[in-house]
Structure formats: C-alpha cells, structure tokens
C-alpha cells in the first residue's frame, strides 16, 4: 500500500491499533470457541469497551489485528462499524503468535504513517488521551528519539484492578518523564532475580534522581511513533511489548531511543488479562467506576438497561418472579427469566437465560442462553453461552464452564474446574466425537474437564505454575495448596527477605554449597566416573567464579559425608571403599603445596563437624589421611606442616583429638625423613595391618 500523503500534523487522522488477540491461554477452554475480545463483560463484548475508549479519545481510524476466530471478530466489527463514526479495518493474520509478530506484520503492511495509539482488545478505560497525545507530539518535535509514551495509572500495589502476578515495576524520572527501567513483578518470587529489582548503575549518570514505582497499573495503552513497528522488525526476537520491547530499548546502548510515560490518577483504566481481572473489572463496571461506560449507558445497539437502587441493572424484558431476591450489584440481560425464591447477588446474567427456582448465584458471570434449573448453587464462576445446569447442581468457586456444557443433575463441580464440550483434539475437526466424562459432569451431562496441556506448546514458558494460578478467577491465597517442602521454601523466602544483609553476604556461597552437594549426590547415586564428576565440578567452579579453595571446602566434606563409620567392610560404605572410589575427586581439587596444607585443615575440620562422636570421627579421619598420603594427594611436607602448625592445634576438642590420631603417622613420617632407607618396609607393614 503506498504511504498516504503527509498532511499537517494538526489535521492528521488519529490512528489506533487494537491487538485483539491476547496470545495467552488464560481463558481456555472458553477461548477455544470464541475470540478473547468478544467475551461478554457485563453483557457487552470486551472489544466494544476498547472501541468506545478510542472513540472518546478522538480516534478516527482503527486497525484491529486478529488471529484466532478472526471470522467472528470480523463479523462483529462489521456490525459495530455501522453504529460508529470510526473507520475500522480488520487485519487477519493466522500466523501471529505474539504482540511482536503483530507489530512486524503492521510494519510489513505499512498501514501506519503517523504516531498511533496501541492498545489491546481488552482495555476498559474512561480516560481521555488528548493531553497524552499533546505531550507526546511536543516531545517528538523536540527529540526524535522519544519513540513511545506509555500511559500508566496510579493505584496502590494491592489494588484489585491491578492484576495479581502481572505487576510491573517502573523506574521513572519525574523531571523528564522518562521511563528508565522496566521489570515485571511476579506474585511468587521463586528466584533471587524475582525478589530484587535490578537495574544498570549507568542510569544514575544521566538521571541522578529517580523514582521507583510499584503502584502503577500498566494497562498497555501506548502512544507509539512509526519507529516502534520498525524496531520490532529489526529485533525479530521481540515478542512482548513490555518484557521484550520496552526492556530491550531501555537496556540497549545502541538504539539510543527513549520511552516516556504519562501518569494518570483519577480515571479508570484496566485490562481484562485474566479471569481474576475479568471478575475485578466486571465489578468496577457495575460499581460505576468506569462511568460513562456502565451498563445503563447501553453501549450496544438494542440494549435497554435501567439502573436501579443497589447497583442493579435490569433490561425491560426481564421476568422476575415475585419471590426472587435480587440483592446488590447485579446485571440481568434481556428476556431472562428468574423463578421463585432464586437469590442473586454480585453477578451478571446474560440474555435469554432461565434461572430456576431456589437457585443461589453469587459472584458468578452467566452468559447468554444459559439454563440453570432448580436448586442449583453457583459460586464465583464463569458459565458461558448455552450451558445447562440440571437440577441440584453445585458449582464451586473458580470454575470455567465453557459453551454448551451440560452438567447433569445433582452433580457437584469441584472448585477451579474447567469444563468444555469440545472433543479432544478439536480444532475445526468436528469428526472427533466428544467423550463426556460422567465423573465430572454427571451421568446425563455433556462435557469433559479441560486440561491445560492441550494446545499449549510454548516450551520456553518455564514459569512457576503458582504464578499462573494466582491470576485465576476467585483465587484465594490461603487456599494455595503447598506441599510441605514448598512451605518450607516459602518460609525461607520470607526469612531471607527479612534479612537483606545476610542474604547479600551468604547467598552466592550458599548457592555454591547447594550446587556442589547436588552434584556430588548425583555422582554418588548414579555412580558416575570420577572424571565426569570432576568435569561437572569444574564447570560449576567457573560458572560461579569461585576458586579451588572454595571447592575444596565443599567437596571434601561432601565426600566424607558418604562414609559410614560403623559400616562393615564390603557394604561399600566404609572409609576405605568410599575413598578408593571417590578419593581422587579430592585430588583433582588440590594442586600445589599450599592447596595440600589447606586440604589437611579442611579434612580435620570436616571430620570434626560431620561426626559428633570422637571415635567415629577418628575412624574416618585416620584412614582418610592415610589414603591421601598414599595417593600423594597430600604429600609428606604438607602433612608435617599441618601437624606442627598452630592452626591445627586450636579449634574444638574433636579437632584436637583428630590431630592426636595423626601422631603415629607423623612420627613415622618424621622418622622416615631421617632414615629414608628402611621406610618402604615399614610402610608395607602398616598397610597390611
């Protein structure tokens, strides 16, 4: 497409790009059957909110990028465009896997020729963008390297519309409004990197005063210049707009581009990124935080909600029975019928639903054409179109019931279930027959439980599964099932978080401790060759920038640990056997005389600390020393020097006792020193003992 003629910047057509796909699987199995951006949020498709937001911002032309279920999106957009005064183009590309791909596609198609607004198809916001746009343009005029302005909303770290597990940390310069560093924040900080914010010290050279912000909602509304898609093309490995693009631009010395921010505080902005956010945003809409985007402003053509006391929104055609109770924060769509004694609170119910008698619905999102028969209980779940709950069904919290699922009578669906009526190995193949799972949906039900692994093929996502869990609907921190080990882990997490000082000092050493121990355990268990173990240890040493001394300190006790002082010969655990097998490992860590001396000290200390009982310690120490001497790992001089040094005579009682054990050997060595002639016989004698 030829680039359009340049017009005066004041009269330029304001363009926006909507990424309708979210490139993740958080709403599966529901999103297996429809596009993410078409999910109804308070009975209005998500993308309508985004369109509305852009229309208010004065956008005249919109490009919608869609990938999965593009036909549905296209159809919707076509319908929507008629009632809107924006020009909406749909761009379909089946190969898109990420935001990065979409941006590259955008660059390839050359659709954009000015600064544009980049949003995702799940943004709900009532902010105005004119000020941001003005700021951005002014900045661009002064400095061409300012390529992007992010709109960030101020909130508190625990704000409910701040998605758990999708947090982000920004380092900003309030003077120049520049973003200096970006780091995603995970809910569970399993690694050291996650627990710390780390940035380049060089930032301080240019920006001596910075601000760290952990209270911003990043709803990914960006004002981008035309360079942004081009940069995505240049850096073909960029996938995510924040983790890759923003981080990449900010850490790159070569590109010399800057990213700015605009902070808004008294408007609403959120993204429906996860089921948990779906819940939060729905409630915000019902509570009118998003005004004017509330149900009674009837965003969709044909809607006719009225707003009643207690934050209840009801279509005119709803049939409420006389005895049903509609508590607060409820939205009920057209032609829905609610029978006697039903109790509704904090929920959204779509069009043409039938809610039976004595049904209790709390905190749930029920979409169109759902039938819920008598005596059902639904808690904190999402039930998609055309689902049927037979009599007496209980849906526990956190469930996603996909399209057309039928749950048989008197079934209890456990918490956090995901049910689908699609056949396994679906993907347009309607040949495959759905095999219903009666254990889940009851004898007369239709559907099966959906497992995460299906269709998810990104192998690089080695994320902590707990981090995925937290973004789930109705997720409750206290419910998190922790195995005993995990609990220990997280306990130590908190502990180490409590002590900055200690962790900073010890951490790399501890890590080496752990690694060495693991390597040795592996070697012992799997019966590796000594050479392989040495290779592994050396790699470890280089990787951790430590020296042989550090390694000795860990390897010697690590080997001795496997000696069982009370084991019988032949069990493979006596000092002699273990040492014959693994002693040369220690030898590989010892090179010159200094090393030998050090090794002797470590040996003494290790025996003393590993075995509390003096006798046991001696039983290990003596053969070990002898073995090392025989194998020339510790040479005569080193042993003598060790014995006579003051360091060996200090220390604990056990250490002293160990030194005494060595006395006969020392005597022998000293003798042999003077009378070298008959030393060989002696040694053989002692060996045979």
């Amino acid at each position, binding site marked *: 497409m030829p680039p359009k003629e340049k017009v005066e910047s004041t009269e330029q057509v304001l363009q926006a790009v909507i990424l309708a796909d979210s490139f993740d699987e958080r709403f599966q199995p529901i999103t297996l059957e429809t596009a993410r951006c078409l999910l109804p949020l308070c009975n209005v498709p998500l993308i309508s909110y985004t369109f509305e937001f852009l229309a208010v911002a004065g956008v005249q032309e919109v490009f919608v990028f869609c990938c999965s279920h593009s036909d549905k999106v296209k159809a919707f957009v076509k319908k929507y465009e008629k009632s809107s005064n924006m020009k909406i183009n749909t761009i379909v590309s089946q190969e898109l896997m990420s935001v990065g791909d979409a941006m590259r596609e955008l660059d390839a198609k050359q659709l954009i020729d000015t600064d544009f607004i980049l949003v995702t198809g799940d943004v709900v916001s009532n902010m105005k963008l004119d000020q941001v746009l003005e700021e951005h343009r002014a900045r661009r005029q002064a400095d061409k390297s300012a390529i992007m302005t992010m709109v960030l909303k101020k909130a508190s770290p625990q704000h409910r519309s701040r998605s758990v597990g999708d947090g982000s940390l920004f380092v900003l310069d309030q003077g120049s409004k520049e973003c200096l560093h970006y780091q995603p924040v995970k809910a569970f900080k399993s690694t050291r990197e996650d627990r710390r914010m780390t940035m*380049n010290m060089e930032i301080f050279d240019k920006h001596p005063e910075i601000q760290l912000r952990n209270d911003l909602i990043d709803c990914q509304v960006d004002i981008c210049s035309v360079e942004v898609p081009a940069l995505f093309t240049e850096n073909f490995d960029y996938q995510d707009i924040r983790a890759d693009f923003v981080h990449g631009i900010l850490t790159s010395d070569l590109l010399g581009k800057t990213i700015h921010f605009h902070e808004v505080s008294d408007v609403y902005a959120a993204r429906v990124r996860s089921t948990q956010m779906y819940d939060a945003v729905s409630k915000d809409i019902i509570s009118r935080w998003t005004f004017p985007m509330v149900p009674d402003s009837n965003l969709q053509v044909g809607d006719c909600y009225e707003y009643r006391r207690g934050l209840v929104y009801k279509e005119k055609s709803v049939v409420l029975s006389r005895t049903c109770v509609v508590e607060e924060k409820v939205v009920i769509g057209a032609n829905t019928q609610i029978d006697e004694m039903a109790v509704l609170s904090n929920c959204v119910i779509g069009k043409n639903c039938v809610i039976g008698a004595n049904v209790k619905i709390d905190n749930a999102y029920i979409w169109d054409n759902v039938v819920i028969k008598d005596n059902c209980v639904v808690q904190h779940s999402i039930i998609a179109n055309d689902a049927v709950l037979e009599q007496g069904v209980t849906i526990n919290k956190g469930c996603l019931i996909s399209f057309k699922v039928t749950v048989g009578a008197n079934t209890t669906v456990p918490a956090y279930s995901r049910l689908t009526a699609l056949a396994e190995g679906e993907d347009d193949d309607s040949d495959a027959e759905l095999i219903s799972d009666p254990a889940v949906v009851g004898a007369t039900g239709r559907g099966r439980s959906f497992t995460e692994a299906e269709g998810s093929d990104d192998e690089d996502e080695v994320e902590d599964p707990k981090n995925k869990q937290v973004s789930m609907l109705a997720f409750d921190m206290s419910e998190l099932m922790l195995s005993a080990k995990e609990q220990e882990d997280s306990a130590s997490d908190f502990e180490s978080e409590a002590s900055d000082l200690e962790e900073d000092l010890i951490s790399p050493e501890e890590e080496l401790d752990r690694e060495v121990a693991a390597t040795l355990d592996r070697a012992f268990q799997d019966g590796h060759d000594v050479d392989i173990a040495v290779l592994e240890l050396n790699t470890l040493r280089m990787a951790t920038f430590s020296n042989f001394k550090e390694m000795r300190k860990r390897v010697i006790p690590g080997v001795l640990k496997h000696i069982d002082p009370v084991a019988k010969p032949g069990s493979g655990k006596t000092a002699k056997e273990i040492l014959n097998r693994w002693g040369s490992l220690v030898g590989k860590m010892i090179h010159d005389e200094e090393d030998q001396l050090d090794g002797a000290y470590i040996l003494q200390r290790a025996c003393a600390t590993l075995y509390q009982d003096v006798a046991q310690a001696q039983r290990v120490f003596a053969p070990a020393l002898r073995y090392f001497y025989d194998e020339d790992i510790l040479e005569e001089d080193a042993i003598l020097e060790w014995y006579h040094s003051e360091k060996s005579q200090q220390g604990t009682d056990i250490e002293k006792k160990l030194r005494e054990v060595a006395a006969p050997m020392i005597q022998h060595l000293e003798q042999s020193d003077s009378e070298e002639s008959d030393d060989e016989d002696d040694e053989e004698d002692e060996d045979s003992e």
Partner: protein
Amino acid sequence: MPYRKRVPEFQAVIMAGYGNGLIPLSDEKNNMPKALLPIVNQPMISYPLAWLESSGVSDVIVVSLASGSKKLGHYLDRVYEGQLHISMEIVDDNCGTAQALARIKDKIKTDFIVISCDLLTSLPPHQFLDMHRSEDPTVTALFFEPNKSEGGPSGSAKENEVTQFVGIDATNSQLVYLNNSDEMDPEEFSVRMSLLSKHPVMNISRLLQDGHLYIFKRWVIDLINEVSIKRTRASLKEHVLPLLVKSQHQRVLADREGVTKAAEASLSVNPSTQALALSLSTTQAPEIEDRSENAQWKSPVKVKAFVVAKDVYCGRANSIANYFELNRYYTKITDKDRNPGGQGQVGADSLVGDDTKLGDRTSVKKSTLGSHVTIGKNVKIVNSIVMDHVVLEDNVKLDGCIVCSGAKICEKSSLKDCEVGGGFRVEKETQARNERLVDFQEQ
C-alpha cells in the same frame, strides 16, 4: 505563679570534629580547629549555635576532640555571646561520632538533636523540628542537595568521591534506603521487591547529601552505645543511621543488633507522647492490641528524611571546596557596611575585616579578608579567603587561594588555587598553582 523547672523538649549536641577534609586549614598547631575556622569572619561553630538558639533549644553540649579543645573552649567561654547554655565535653582524638556520643550518654536525658559544627543553613529550624514533632519518628535526618561549586581551590578531596544513594518514600518521606556507592555493585543497582511493595513510590537520589543534622529519640543513645562497643570508630552516619534504616524492614537484623531490645526497653519506661495523647483522648476508640505471633512484624524504628527545598541554602564545610563555596555564598549575602573605603578597591562581593590595611592600587574581588591583615601595594586578591594576621607584601597575586592566619606571602608571589598553611612563609617571587603550601614537619 510558682517557679517550675522547665523540662526541655530537646537537648542538642554539636559535634566539633577534626575536619579531615579541611587539612591543612584545620591544623591545630598553626591555625585553629575546624569549628573555629572563619566563615565570613565568624567562627564556623557560631552558625549552628545561632541556628539552635533560634530553634528554641537551650541546652547544648559541644563535643570536641582533645586536640582542638583549648581554643574552642576559650571561644565558647569568652567570646561567644549567645543565650545558649553550653557545656563542653572532650573526647579522645580517634573517636568516631557514635563513640563520642556514647561517652556522654549519661548527660542525655531527652530526645536529642545532633548537629555538626560545619552545617550552615538558612532553613528555619521549626520546619525541621516540626516534622519530628508531628511524625514522631525514631530519627529525623536532614538531607540536602549541594549547590554547584563555582570553582576555586578543590583541595585533595576530589578524587573518587563516595556518593550516597538515598531512597525516600515519596508519600510519607520515610527514609527507606541508604547505601554508599563504595559498598555497592558498580554495575548494577538493586533493591529488594519486598521493600518496593511496602513503599510503592520510592524516590532514589544520588544527589542528596547527609546534612549530619539528626533528631534522635532518647533510647537511640543506648543503641549508639551498643554500636560503639561493637565497632571501633563507630560513626553516626556510617553505622548508626544505616542500621536504623535497615531495622525498619529487617527483623532479624533489628533483633540481632539490639535495636528491638533498646526500643522496647524505652517504650516500657515511657511510652511515646503520641501514644500517650491518643490514649488520653476521649474520641479515640480503644485500640485492640494484637499480640499474636502471626501479626505482621512492626518495626520499632521509623526513620524520616527531611529534604531541604532547593531554594533554601544549605551546605557543609567539610571539605576545602565546600568551605570555600560557603564562604563565597555568605560573603554575598552579608551586608558590607564595614568595608573600608579609600585606598584599595574592594569589590561588591567582598568583605574586609577590622583593622585591615589595604595598600595603594590593591584590588579585592569576591574575597573575604580577616582582621589585622596587612596588604602591600598593587596586590590583587580574587576569589580568595585570607584569615587574620596575614601579611601580603607588594605585588602579590592571589586567585582562588585560602591563606591561613599568620601566614606571610612575600613580594611578587603569584598563587593560584593554593592553600597556604598557618604561619607559613611564602618566599618572594613564588609561582604556584594548585599547591598546598605548608610547613613540612606538620605532616
């Protein structure tokens, strides 16, 4: 009305150190201790004294090192004319600031202000004190952004200065992060996430400097004592303050270093005034004490940072460059009625002390001249500080120099960016640049 003994709100301690950054100016033998170095012909210490006086504090303890105590004592006894009730304490020369405070711990009865004798500020004291009064923290510390230097003698302190990284919670001005660049990874700046979730908006600055003006709760003196036992040359700035800052978040550290213990001990003796006021209030609902183990640990420490606004002057004369800068600034704002007219040419930004004689064709620009200075003919003094009893012979040129008292600069010498030690004699026709002219045996 019967006379009642007044209980002072704060005690003040002025730390009059040696002034390592001001060598050779602060040399005891030949010149004067740091506290008495003149800034616009007033001893440096008179500025914090005046500041304290206007803050309403009445009891001041001046802690001096033994080496400068004689001259300082003389000044406080005989020369000082203010209203403060001053007592002087002398500590050993090799004493850190925390150690010095630990020595006088028995004399500290109330919350106390610690100020360095080299702090000069136009900040109204009540602004700083009110922050402490209203927020009731453990420590309130003053931070300021140093003014840009306009050149002059740099001294030797320029090489590789250690910068401080100061992190302040933007919402409640709590001091949450403090680190020196020499203790940090030179490549990476790193902060733990848990700190950021507690303090979501944190300003980190590399420009701010510790003003060495603190208000401590009474119990901190016990902690200071403990720290000074554990370390040699323990200092408030290097050890006590960082410990307190970290104790706000690190329970293990707070327990280990005895912070928790010290705080609890004091709390049981006299609960904080605010808690007391709240408990006496009739409108305050009784607080339910949560003593359970699971309750989130609440640090006994709260450190607040007072950042001096940019338009308020604040500076520390702790290096030659800063000393010079302060002199220049205060010369600018002092009224110069006393300047003698006549023979010489004295520029607008200069100040000339009493009984100073200027020879013919002498010009003085942007400089401070002490009392009893004898100046010959055709002398040019630019950007310099000349202390009392200095003799400048004919045709001397000084640019960016500090000449200590009793020095003599013989004719036709030309010095630029030099420091001349006390009583030193600069031979005639000396040409020097960026040098330190002091008696050899001094060092």
